[in-house]
């Protein structure tokens, strides 16, 4: 006898979901110096991926290619089912502004602006009215334990505070992907851990995909998975089962 479930059963594809972000066989040289030599990596939606590797291995260059900041000499970058490396600079710029967020090693806050103006900056640049942009920025101060710093300028913030303001700025547009390049590199380990706690918690709450470049294992340990970039090539190793 055929049960109600069997005759209505539809065959769903079993293959892994298409990655949200992908580099395929990417090559890029700076003058005569090759930085990437056939780098391939894919990131699933909602995943937190750590990109590790020694200094000069090409991990930051890979992040810049994935984020549409640099254009590969050859190879392809795909985002949300669309090839983005052939896009014009204005289109890539719009992509970065609307869909991506960024946090760098040194927060790179605008020193003339207050903390809340810094957080609101991507919204202001996106054309939002000032009052609305600031209103959207404000909840991040509580979320990232920054209450009381709203009106301070970057020079009046501690390193950990400045980095959390930068994180809030990276997340304020609710980007699909947050690119974080050594986000704790300038912080002591305790402060760095707090930033990573907040970063990963916020990303998981919003389903934000994170590409995290770091050479620190303790930072990488916050990610779901890691890949190693070595000599411009990406290695991905799963531990051998014991």
């Amino acid at each position, binding site marked *: 006898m055929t049960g109600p479930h069997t005759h209505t059963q539809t065959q769903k594809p079993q293959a892994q979901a298409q990655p949200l972000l992908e580099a395929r066989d990417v090559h890029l040289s700076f003058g005569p110096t090759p930085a990437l030599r056939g780098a391939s990596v894919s990131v699933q939606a909602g995943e937190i991926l750590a990109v590790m590797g*020694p200094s000069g291995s090409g991990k930051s260059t890979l992040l810049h290619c994935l984020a549409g900041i640099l254009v590969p000499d050859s190879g392809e970058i795909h985002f949300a089912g669309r090839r983005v490396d052939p896009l014009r600079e204005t289109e890539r710029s719009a992509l970065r502004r609307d869909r991506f967020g960024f946090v760098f090693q040194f927060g790179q806050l605008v020193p003339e602006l207050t903390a809340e103006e810094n957080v609101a900056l991507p919204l202001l640049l996106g054309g939002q009215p000032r009052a609305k942009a600031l209103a959207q920025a404000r909840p991040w101060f509580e979320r990232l334990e920054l209450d009381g710093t709203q009106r301070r300028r970057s020079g009046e913030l501690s390193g950990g505070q400045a980095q959390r303001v930068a994180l809030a700025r990276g997340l304020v547009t609710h980007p699909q992907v947050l690119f974080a390049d050594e986000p704790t590199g300038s912080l002591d380990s305790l402060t760095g851990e707090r930033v990573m*706690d907040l970063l990963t918690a916020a990303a998981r709450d919003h389903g934000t995909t994170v590409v995290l470049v770091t050479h620190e*294992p*303790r930072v*990488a*340990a*916050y*990610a*779901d998975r*890691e890949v*190693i970039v070595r000599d411009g090539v990406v*290695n991905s*190793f*799963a*531990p*051998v089962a*014991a």
Partner: protein
Amino acid sequence: MALLGLLEREPSHGYDLKRDYDTFFGRGKPLPFGQVYSTLSRLARDGKVIAGDAEPGAGPDRKRYVITEAGVTEVETWVGQPVEPEPHLQTVLFVKVILALMSGRDAARYLDSQRAAHLKRMRELTELKRGAELVDGLLADHALFHLEADLRWIELTSARLTALAERVQS
């Protein structure tokens, strides 16, 4: 030594010592009662503790134990003495690398696999730390820092593998 140290605070029953040991040091591996009492007997024999008379009441052992001057001295010495730094932590990792190189096997692949295993464990510990109370968090940190030290060595060795291969194969 942990039991003796716990006993230094105040005269205690074996059960109290076990409970406090499990709270602070047990971490999912509770101390068997048998081990508590055999340790206390040995300490009594060595003059580090004195067992009081059995008290009336239920339970397997109602003796109260008191630390002696000799016991306090032992705790004092032990707590103040640095632990021998462990220079042999890397031994297994090191032997694997050397043997792989000597036999022409892929040492880089082994190191990659070891790195992945270390990072997997670090992820588990980081997850465990999330929301953990202070004691558990600090224990996880201790493990994390040790694993991180291993990883630094793995990176260094990976970077020097070619030179090391030449050295062991010559």
